């Protein structure tokens, strides 16, 4: 489903964010990218979304070589990838339902189909009664649920999450992880960058550890074991 082959990313100014990374992620897998800040986790997510060009190597996402994909086809790549971020990235002037519907509207889906899909996905994330609220009227955990609903409403085969629990308290994080786990059980491949020990240790899924852009380990059922402890 996702394949990175000898991928190196050097930012302008010479910072090497990812170095010779090769990785195969199968359909339906749940993979944690772990490592301290600056280890290259977020860069991998950005490279998978083609928000950044690779410096060397190749990346395949959902069967497409993103490194040779022409610019005008990038939107199609992103439609097959749902994304969840630490800061939720919700539109403050749209309601919960509108925020979720937005992801379908940009794809040109008919209005009738949108309403039904939005209701379904809001039920999935447990916000069926809060569709007409605005993001500012919701708690952090609820906002993250909206962002997950938006990422999943289009039923993409892949979901990328960059520190989705970074702004949430441990209790709320557990709820978010349960939700992601449920989505993963529907067959959606999930790649999640995090430095949350508790979550990684509790979930017991595949763990890929990065440090200064290098892959230190790749375990099918791993724990967050690292010498450096992040706050």
């Amino acid at each position, binding site marked *: 489903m996702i394949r990175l082959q000898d991928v*190196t990313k*050097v930012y302008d100014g*010479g910072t*090497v964010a990812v*170095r010779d990374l090769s990785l195969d992620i199968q359909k339906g897998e749940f993979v944690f990218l772990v490592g301290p800040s600056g280890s290259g986790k977020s860069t991998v997510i950005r490279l998978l*979304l*083609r*928000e*950044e*060009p*690779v*410096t*060397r190597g190749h990346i395949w996402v959902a069967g497409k*070589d*993103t*490194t*040779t*994909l022409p*610019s*005008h086809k*990038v*939107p*199609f*790549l*992103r*439609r097959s990838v749902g*994304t969840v971020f630490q800061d939720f*990235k919700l*539109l403050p*002037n749209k309601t919960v339902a509108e925020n979720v519907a*937005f*992801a379908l*509207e*940009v*794809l*040109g889906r*008919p*209005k009738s189909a949108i309403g039904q899909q939005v209701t379904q996905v809001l039920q999935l994330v447990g916000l069926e009664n809060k569709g007409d609220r605005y993001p500012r009227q919701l708690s952090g955990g609820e906002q993250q649920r909206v962002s997950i609903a*938006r990422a999943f409403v*289009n039923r993409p085969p892949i979901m990328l999450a960059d520190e989705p629990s970074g702004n949430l308290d441990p209790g709320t994080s557990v709820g978010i992880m349960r939700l992601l786990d449920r989505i993963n059980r529907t067959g959606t491949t999930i790649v999640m960058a995090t430095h949350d020990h508790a979550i990684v240790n509790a979930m017991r899924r595949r763990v890929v550890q990065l440090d200064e852009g*290098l892959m230190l380990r790749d375990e099918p059922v791993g724990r967050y074991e690292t010498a450096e402890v992040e706050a």
Partner: protein
Amino acid sequence: MSRFAYLLGETLQGMRRNVLVVVGAVLAVFVSLSLAFGALAFNQVVRVNTLAWQDGVHIIAFLNDPGASGVAPDAHERLTNDVQGWGEVERVRYVDKAGAWAEFQELFQDRPDILELGNQAQLPASLRIELTDIDLHDSVELRLAQEQQTVSRVSVASNAIQQISQITRVLNVVGIGLSLILGIAAVVLIANTIRLAIYARRDEISIMKLVGASNWFIRVPFILEGMIEGLFGAALAVFAVWVAARPLMGSVSQVEWFRITLSSGFFLRWGVLFVLFGAVAGILGSFLGLSRYLKETEGTTTGRETVPELV
């Protein structure tokens, strides 16, 4: 169609949210295009007024019709040849009755009431005389006065008309140049405004890109916005110049050498063109404003950067 309605809705919503930016854009287009349109209107006034005085004509001698009392059938031809021989005269051009009628029709093309009153028979033939030196007009006038059987009336361009005639050519060039510069200014101002509007909505755009919106989907609302702003600004500009020129339009002043006539035909023709230009400027400005924001990165930068070795 519903997709277009959705995009139009997004456009109007975006404009509502950034009213001040929108007003700024409309005013920018309004100001630059009213100046351009004003320059054009002024040019038109000058052009109409100096129509008869183009090519440096200094004196017009209106002639009695051949066959009238004491006017020989070949009197016009003879006089033309005589005048051409005078030392003060640089050039002389004979305008027959048909030529005078054509000129009259052009001058009053938008005044059917005046056109109705005239006909070719009423208009006299004339000699358009260009002098080697404008200061010599006294002596030429005197000589023409001696031809009183053939010459009915002599008109001399006043200094003011002389000056206007001279600056017409300059004004035409300046007017075209000014309109061009102001037109470009309108495009740049709209581009800037659209860029502001994009800046105000950059989060929304980044989210749109994130969920896979195509560039056209993101672009259309901004292009519509630019077009609407351009249309409004240009329409306001045309309206403002029309209002300003309204007291002058159609009035034929009693001053022999100066007629201020701006026809409704002129306003219609150029007004529509200006409004269209406003819309095009808006679209162009939007494209310029958007280009940088919607650029996708290429997939690879291979060959452009070297990877430092690990120590």
